[in-house]
């Protein structure tokens, strides 16, 4: 008997609309992946304003769609929507159950990924060096705004074994959300590396919701059926690790060899050694068989023993950013935009406003492609100048934007528009410090709390 897991969410801001289709098609576990690196930064800003925040605030809308099916015993929910405050997220989940008049559900919270209160202790015990640059922790431009370790599937499996219907975690590796129910149901051992790798690969294929069902597909994207009704993916996974990737039949979208392989390598470094907390998975060992009718069979995945460390992300304040956009029309649109950028920067300098970093982009010319855009002498009909800057102080960043406004009358000749939004509020920039922490230093602090909804 296979276990059916569904990928109901791919990021904070995704839509719960696809959940109904997954539940109708039938999934034993609905996994909601809510956290990207950028998401933790957003949640940190939320928590700064209100201590009861710090989880993804769309969790209740997902639970409203899912909890009736959970109460009927048709599915269970596993999510990392807890962000940097899983305890508050669990409270929100229980409130949502009350609101729906559902009692008897068991909500589990996984704690212990938040290492911020223990940073100094950890820095003394290990080096917390920057994973990319190798810089030692003493060079961390602190204080830390959040510090989270990527936990694996084990505490989720513990929660399921304790009878949880809803499992809420903080920073757990995306794929572990999907691996956990497979380990729980199939009884896979923690050193059964090939099975753990198969479950991790399945999780990786499902963690970005629509991205394996025809979303963000290169080449044939325009032929994906009914893209406004894009389904989210389902995996039916056997005890031997063989998986069938598919989608709700009644929806649009597409699951094929091509859509699946696009997701296979998404945000992956060495595909032969995909590092997860639970296993090192070899994605190049998998065989994909497109059976047609939106069914792709995955077999043969191999794994190697997990590393002794967890990855962790620390964040620090990195200044304030402002930005403004101005549109220019023919004639000489590109030249006007270029001149305006220079005049703007000179005015900011004259005003004595210190800018630590500038970023000027010409949309319609090479804003996104940069040096890969072939040189051309053709004159663009329209160009948007986007200027962004970084300042040490938020007040300075706000004043910089003001210097663009007078150019309406005092800049290059008519043809510039869009000044209405010139003075957007500065936003805080965060620097990310990835590092590794010995599992031995984290595991004793990982806890699962189970609470029954009364």
């Amino acid at each position, binding site marked *: 008997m296979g276990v059916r897991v569904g990928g109901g969410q791919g990021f904070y801001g995704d839509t719960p609309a696809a959940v109904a289709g997954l539940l109708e098609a039938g999934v034993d576990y609905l996994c909601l992946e809510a956290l990207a*690196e950028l998401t933790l930064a957003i949640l940190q800003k939320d928590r700064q304003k209100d201590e009861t925040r710090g989880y993804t605030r769309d969790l209740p809308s997902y639970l409203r769609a899912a909890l009736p099916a959970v109460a009927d015993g048709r599915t269970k929910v596993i999510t990392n929507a807890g962000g940097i405050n899983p305890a508050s997220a669990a409270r929100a989940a229980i409130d949502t159950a009350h609101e729906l008049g559902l009692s008897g559900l068991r909500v589990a919270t996984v704690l212990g990924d938040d290492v911020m209160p223990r940073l100094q202790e950890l820095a003394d015990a290990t080096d917390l060096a920057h994973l990319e640059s190798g810089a030692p922790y003493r060079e961390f431009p602190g204080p830390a705004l959040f510090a989270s370790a990527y936990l694996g599937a084990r505490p989720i499996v513990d929660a399921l074994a304790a009878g949880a219907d809803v499992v809420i975690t903080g920073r757990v590796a995306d794929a572990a959300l999907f691996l956990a129910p497979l380990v729980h149901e199939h009884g896979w051992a923690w050193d059964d590396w090939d099975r753990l790798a198969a479950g991790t690969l399945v999780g990786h294929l499902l963690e970005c919701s629509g991205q394996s069902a025809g979303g963000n597909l290169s*080449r044939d994207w325009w032929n994906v059926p009914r893209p406004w009704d894009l389904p989210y993916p389902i995996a039916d996974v056997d005890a031997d690790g063989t998986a069938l990737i598919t989608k709700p039949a009644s929806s649009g979208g597409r699951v094929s060899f091509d859509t699946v392989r*696009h997701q296979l390598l998404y945000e992956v470094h060495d595909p032969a050694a995909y590092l997860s907390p639970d296993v090192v998975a070899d994605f190049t060992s998998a065989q994909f068989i497109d059976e047609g009718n939106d069914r792709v069979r995955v077999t043969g995945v191999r794994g190697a023993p997990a590393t002794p460390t967890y990855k962790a992300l620390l964040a620090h304040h990195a200044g304030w950013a402002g930005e403004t956009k101005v549109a220019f029309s023919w004639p000489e649109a590109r030249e006007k935009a270029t001149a305006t950028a220079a005049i703007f920067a000179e005015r900011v300098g004259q005003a004595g406003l210190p800018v630590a970093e500038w970023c000027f*982009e010409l949309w319609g010319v090479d804003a996104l492609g940069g040096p*890969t855009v072939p040189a051309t002498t053709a004159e663009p009909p329209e160009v948007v100048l986007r200027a962004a800057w970084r300042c040490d102080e938020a007040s300075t960043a706000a004043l910089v934007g003001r210097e663009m406004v007078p150019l309406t009358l005092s800049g290059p000749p008519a043809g510039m528009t869009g000044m209405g939004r010139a003075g957007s509020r500065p936003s805080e920039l965060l620097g*990310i410090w990835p590092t590794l922490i010995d599992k031995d230093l984290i595991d004793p602090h990982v806890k699962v709390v189970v609470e029954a909804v009364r």
Partner: protein
Amino acid sequence: MTTRRLYDLGCGYRSGDKGDISNIALFADGPELYELIRAEVTVERVQAHFAGLVRGRVERYEAPNVWALNFVLHDALGGGAPRSLRSDNLGKTLGGALVRLEIEVPDRLAARIMPAPDVGWAETILERLV
């Protein structure tokens, strides 16, 4: 031999971020094109293609089971998504930027004609709107 963009050969692409690292998967539609991109789309070519935009080193991995190469571009996103001033702070468009790269192609592959995007269905929908 003729020069063609990876795009013209039908290569697929998808890019993503991790910290200040961008990875770009480049897909061939079968073994013949895969062997060609494996030979032609070298670390050096990709490094030069993105010079100025990507400040760090480039690594290349092979995934022959899905006829793909995976490029890992370090120091590539202006400091990482929450720190970057770029509008594409996640590097979502870097995959498309990669398939602009031109390589030497045997005439048989150069003769390929790729279907042009057809969004007639979208135009129909938009025409219905008031």
